């Protein structure tokens, strides 16, 4: 099987879906002539032309709304945000327009749209460019929220997101675009709403998604050498969340750690904890422990930025804590 980058996996997904369905178009800042700020759209302008690969002015609120309007009357837009940090300017269109249109029209207008781009921190970008927004958007009924952790998942999930008839919020990561993995050349879909057990073990469940997946796998490999075997449950889709896969794993291991990039308060991990206590109260052998960003805006200086982010050491400590090993 070919080994390609996460970036090229996304590029393949876009190309295949644009070939398959001429209602699909890509719109955003620098997606066409510049070939994408992170080169995810490389070559697409040349193949599909400027009506289907559309450079916009710097106007997140505006072009997100253009996508909603186009979706409302039958097109299938993919809206690229250069980063989700900039997408905050477009939140009205994502939350008030895309997510609500089907409901407030009494089922008459569905919005088949994908909002995608890198999310969370990269390196030393400081406070305004380093935020993970998935808990905000996962809060909203009417949206699906997806965050792939591997190149294989990136391709299959993006294709599913483009084919979905609902608004899908799709979180990538600047630090992931160069990650490599096996990705089939052919057409395949990973259904939204299905988690993936990326490692199997009996001692503890490590729940995560997106950019934290490689970190979780690294932690699992390290701990395996000490004889501690983790279930690494990659949610892949945060909303709708695969509560069945979560409960199955928790009932097996009886211990849970949640690893996410974002802040603790009202984070995705808080929802996981709630599902655990609701569905698996009697099966838990220890309180769930959460690993997350420090509850501060992201700093610039290398040492304190590192201290703010979740990492392997913090995750290993969390696993040891729920296993009462310390």
């Amino acid at each position: 099987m070919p080994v390609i980058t996460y970036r090229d996996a996304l590029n393949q997904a876009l190309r295949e879906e644009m070939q398959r369905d001429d209602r699909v178009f890509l719109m955003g800042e620098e997606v066409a002539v510049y070939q994408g700020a992170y080169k995810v759209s490389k070559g697409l302008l040349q193949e599909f032309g400027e009506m289907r690969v559309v450079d916009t002015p710097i106007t997140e609120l505006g072009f997100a709304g253009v996508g909603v309007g186009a979706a409302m009357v039958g097109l299938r837009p993919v809206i690229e945000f250069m980063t989700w940090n900039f997408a905050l300017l477009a939140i009205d269109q994502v939350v008030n327009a895309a997510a609500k249109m089907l409901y407030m029209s009494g089922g008459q207008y569905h919005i088949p749209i994908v909002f995608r781009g890198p999310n969370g921190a990269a390196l030393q970008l400081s406070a305004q460019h380093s935020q993970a927004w998935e808990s905000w958007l996962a809060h909203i009924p009417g949206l699906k929220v997806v965050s792939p952790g591997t190149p294989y998942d990136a391709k299959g999930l993006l294709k599913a997101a483009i084919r979905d008839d609902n608004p899908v919020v799709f979180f990538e990561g600047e630090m992931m675009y160069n990650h490599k993995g096996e990705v089939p050349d052919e057409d395949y879909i990973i259904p939204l709403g299905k988690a993936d057990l990326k490692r199997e073990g009996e001692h503890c469940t490590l729940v995560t998604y997106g950019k934290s997946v490689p970190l979780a796998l690294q932690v699992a490999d390290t701990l395996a050498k000490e004889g501690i075997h983790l279930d690494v449950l990659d949610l892949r889709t945060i909303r709708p969340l695969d509560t069945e896969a979560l409960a199955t794993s928790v009932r097996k291991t009886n211990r849970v750690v949640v690893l996410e990039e974002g802040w603790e308060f009202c984070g995705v991990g808080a929802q996981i904890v709630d599902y655990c206590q609701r569905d698996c109260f009697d099966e838990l052998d220890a309180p769930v422990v959460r690993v997350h960003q420090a509850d501060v805006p992201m700093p610039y200086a290398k040492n304190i930025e590192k201290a703010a982010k979740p990492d392997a050491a913090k995750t290993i400590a969390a696993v040891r804590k729920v296993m009462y090993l310390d």
Partner: protein
Amino acid sequence: MAKKKAEAPGETTLGATDAPTRLALLRSMLLQRRFEERCAEAYALGRIGGFCHLYIGQEACGTGVISMLRPDDYVITTYRDHGQAIARGISSRAVMAELFGRSDGCARGKGGSMHLFDRNTNFLGGHGIVGGHVPVATGVGFAIKYRGGDQACACFMGESVVNTGAFHEALNMAGLWKLPVVYIIENNRYGMGTALERASAIHDIYQRGAAYDMPRGVVDGQDVLAVRQAMGEALHRARTESMPTLLEVRTYRFMGHSMSDAVSGTYRSKQELEEYMQRDPINVLRHHMEAKGEIDDARMAALDDEVKAEVQDAWDFADASPEPALESLYEDVLVETTT
């Protein structure tokens, strides 16, 4: 139009009306007026809840604009949407049932007064966030151009929208990409209680179109025939050149901003209100038709009886329509994907 007048087949033919058309316009405006007078009554009785923004005084804007559209064109608007919905042909029954929060409403009781929708007439909704629907209209224009059709999108907004970022972003793209959207500013002089002069650095707000190299103009919004003519020119430009237009329609709201706002309020004088009410859009057209011998007091009274009966029928229909089934609470959040 102030600028870039299209080489249209003589202006007079674009919005020209014959006697039956004028009668239909009169009937539509009268229906909207009587419908909304009953809305105020229903609101007082608690039959209509939430926010309720009446269009009374502004009927010539929506009626003039929409009467020029084809069935395959699109309409998108704000929360002050009852009159436009009726002008577009959504039945007064379906609109009243929606206002009553009933299952036969045009949005199944999910939208209410501010969110009337109807796929059959390409009525893309009333929208509740000031400015939010303007980029959506630009997207509709983008889709029309993408598919290569000669449809157009009519986007209504109040004058306070021109101060939002969404307006600027949306019109810039429409000007840049030459999209077939007519942006209609219904300038009723007040954004809620704030006068235009207290909110906008310029007062001839159609001139904002200059910033987007967009054809633009201003028209008397109490004269439905003048609105039709201006809309005709804008639509001709949209269909033949794929060009947007910014059309300012100067009008006045005869009622408060919403039902919680007294009719004249603290922000405008009773005298000002009474002066504007001298130019009631229904009377402006009626006098025009009287001069042509097309209507008299007896025919006007008969027409009034006819629309009042239609509104009573709408009320009775809404009253008899069942409340939404409880299970509908969880419907329409997501749609089942079939592809």
